[in-house]
């Protein structure tokens, strides 16, 4: 099921980033990171806490300001006109949620974008289909804040998927997610990759996604330290509730601090 390499040769890469730098609060977090994503491939952005892996994808999608020599999306400099071909799944629900919102409302908001301030025709059906793809259609009319962590994550992925993106970027989609949700997520990402989409996943551990990942980019202290084969799957580490109480000897890069690879709760 690997359609990747042919399509990558025919079309420009989904994403080419060169020399990405991010300064936050007076500190440079990313020191000129290079990074590519190709159609039909899944690339993992890995690293310990504070390595800058989330900052990198947030910069690439324009959620935080950054400077770069190049950020090209689908062969052209990144701009709002390409945003409709990109789907982004942030780590958590945003700052909102002071007021209840249903899963359907959240997913429908994924159909908006540059020049589209109201949902298109058939938005409801498309949003329901996206929820069904992730196996959370029964939650469509429930308040998202009452859903489990795994269900919330599936709703966020449905919100990105409803855009039918050619470039899908996810920030730690497996953090705090139950096993059935992990399987549903892995299956959805597999379908996206096999359909020729470019998938970028920020990951702490390969875990349930090990079979999906084609390449890995490993960051440490805001610099790339490894590009290529993904580091060997670490099995139980990515499972929810895993208690991390032993030293690592098999990670691609040593952690910056004893707590750097701690599983996020």
């Amino acid at each position, binding site marked *: 099921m690997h359609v990747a390499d042919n399509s990558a040769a025919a079309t420009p890469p989904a994403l080419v980033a060169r020399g990405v730098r991010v300064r936050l609060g007076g500190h440079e977090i990313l020191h000129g990171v290079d990074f590519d994503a190709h159609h039909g491939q899944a690339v993992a952005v890995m690293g310990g806490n504070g390595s800058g892996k989330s900052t990198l994808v947030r910069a690439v999608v324009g959620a935080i300001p950054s400077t770069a020599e190049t950020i090209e999306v689908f062969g052209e400099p990144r701009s709002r006109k390409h945003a409709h071909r990109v789907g982004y799944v942030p780590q958590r629900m945003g*700052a*909102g*949620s*002071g*007021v*209840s*919102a249903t899963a359907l*409302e959240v997913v429908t*908001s994924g159909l908006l974008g540059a020049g589209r301030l109201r949902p298109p025709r058939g938005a409801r059906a498309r949003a329901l289909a996206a929820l069904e793809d992730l196996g959370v259609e029964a939650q469509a009319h*429930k308040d998202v804040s009452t859903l489990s962590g795994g269900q919330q994550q599936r709703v966020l992925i449905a919100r990105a998927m409803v855009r039918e993106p050619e470039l899908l970027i996810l920030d730690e989609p497996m953090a705090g997610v139950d096993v059935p949700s992990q399987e549903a997520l892995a299956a959805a990402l597999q379908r996206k990759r096999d359909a020729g989409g470019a998938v970028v996943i920020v990951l702490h551990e390969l875990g349930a996604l090990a079979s999906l990942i084609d390449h890995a980019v490993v960051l440490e202290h805001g610099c790339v330290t490894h590009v290529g084969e993904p580091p060997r799957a670490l099995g139980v580490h990515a499972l929810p509730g895993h208690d991390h109480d032993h030293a690592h000897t098999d990670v691609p890069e040593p952690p910056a601090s004893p707590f750097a690879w701690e599983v996020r709760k």
Partner: protein
Amino acid sequence: MSLLTDPIVQRMLLVAIMVGATAPIVGTYLVHRRMALLGDGIGHVALAGVAAGWLAGSWAGLAQKDALAIPGAIVFAITGAVVIERMRARGIAAADVIMAIMFYGGIASGVLLISMAGGSNANLMGYLFGSISTVSWDDVWVTVIMAVIILVIGLGLRPALFAVTHDQEFAFSTGLPVGALNMVVAVLSAVTITASMRVVGVLLVSGLMILPVAISQLITRSFSKTMTFAMVIGVVLCVTGVGITLFHNLQPGALIVVLGVLLYVVVASGVALLKKHRHRRDSAALRADLRDQEASA
């Protein structure tokens, strides 16, 4: 019924309905973004605008000294809203610190400006606590214009404003004009506050924006239903409050807000009781099931 043919009563009720329906629209966005106090910040700045308008009126030698008070409030409120939003967006200061500066700065400069205009704090009272019984037909028309602006933009842009207030980071990634939409929320807040100022006054205006949303939130699950239901609650509160003051000599603005707080307490207690009842019923059913299983085993 003869009351309803009295033009003063007609004007009061018209303004009450419009303000009651529109204030919760912006309130819903503010509560969702966890900026419920923004209305207070802008309200205090609007008070300085009232005093500045008064001062301008007295300098210009106008017969009616407060003729420029409402225009002054509109200009100050919108400017204040834009400044707050820019400071927040650029991370110049934390939102609560910006609010604090607006509270003290607005009240202090309001009092200072009114004394420069040769007025007294008593002149500000009508704006601090509202004076719905003094609205003229001109005021009604100004309120109509503001209400239409809030309804058209606040409801028309609801999907986009929801997206931005719900998850700004995701909104950026979709290409939505996040900065402009945040500014729309800020400016709509300013318009709402100047429109509601006549009914409840700047000190209580935020109550009219937030309380109906807080009540509605207790019983709804979706964003759009929360907003719609809050608008209904807003109208009911305003009309009830104004209606009561027709028969009893009470301050309408304060009465509306107190009615809102009472309704919140009643609904919140009702919801809590209902949950407790459901929980008891469910656990009783569970115990009965267990007994049945034991009996059959």
